[in-house]
């Protein structure tokens, strides 16, 4: 039995794609290698499946958001800290960010406020990037699948 609940898919599933320029691409996916026995082939198929999973796996939205937030917040905090410690910094400087980041200034308080604003901006950017990238991947996969299905049934009328 496979993920779709039928026995048929335990046999090799052949997905043939024929892109417009005449290049034939064949992807052979065995969905249930364990059901066929054969240690070596099962190992090969499992590594193949893993590669497919890696190729089409989505980005973790929250993880990328938090990572970007931490990095952007850290950059803003460190640069603000550098200016605070140096003192006598030339104009124009990071104080201009106060136009967008309410409460931010080059001061000890600004280090914390800058970190929080940077974290928030970074989180939104990272999360949004992952969302758009995952959506694009999903659309791409849907197109590939529908093309493959259309190709599979293109000669349907010939068999009637």
């Amino acid at each position, binding site marked *: 039995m496979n*993920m779709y609940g039928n026995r048929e898919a335990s046999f090799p599933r052949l997905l043939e794609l024929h892109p417009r320029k005449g290049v034939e691409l064949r992807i052979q996916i065995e969905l249930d290698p364990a059901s066929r026995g054969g240690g070596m082939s099962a190992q090969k198929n499992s590594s193949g499946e893993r590669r497919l999973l890696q190729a089409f*796996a989505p980005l*973790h939205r929250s993880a990328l958001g938090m*990572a970007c937030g931490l990095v952007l917040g850290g950059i803003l905090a460190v*640069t603000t800290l550098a200016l605070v410690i140096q003192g006598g910094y030339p104009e124009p400087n990071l104080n201009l960010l106060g136009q967008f980041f309410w409460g931010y200034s080059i001061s000890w308080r600004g280090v914390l406020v800058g970190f929080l604003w940077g974290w928030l901006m970074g989180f939104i950017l990272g999360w949004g990037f992952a969302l758009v990238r995952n959506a694009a991947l999903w659309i791409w996969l849907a197109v590939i699948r529908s093309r493959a299905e259309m190709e599979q049934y293109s000669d349907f009328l010939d068999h009637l």
Partner: protein
Amino acid sequence: MEPEEDQIEKAVVLLNAKLLGIVLGFLSGAGLFLATNFLVLKGGRHVGVHLGLLAAFFPGYRVTFLGSIIGFFYAFLAGFLVGAILGAVYNKIATA
């Protein structure tokens, strides 16, 4: 072995932190190098007044050809750190 559906649902892309660091480092280094030299070649009265402010964070950096080389190394280092931290934090959270 985990069921196939679970594997598919849990699968997420992991990042190569070092590679991401190198790529971001090279991009930011090359970006600063090109921006500096663009301003140097453009010339004018006050060359790179605003880009020169980076000297507050990158000691020794100037808007000159030599400064562009120094800036490349500073920006590469900064970009590398950003990429490496980004990749490491992402992988840590994604696999938690």
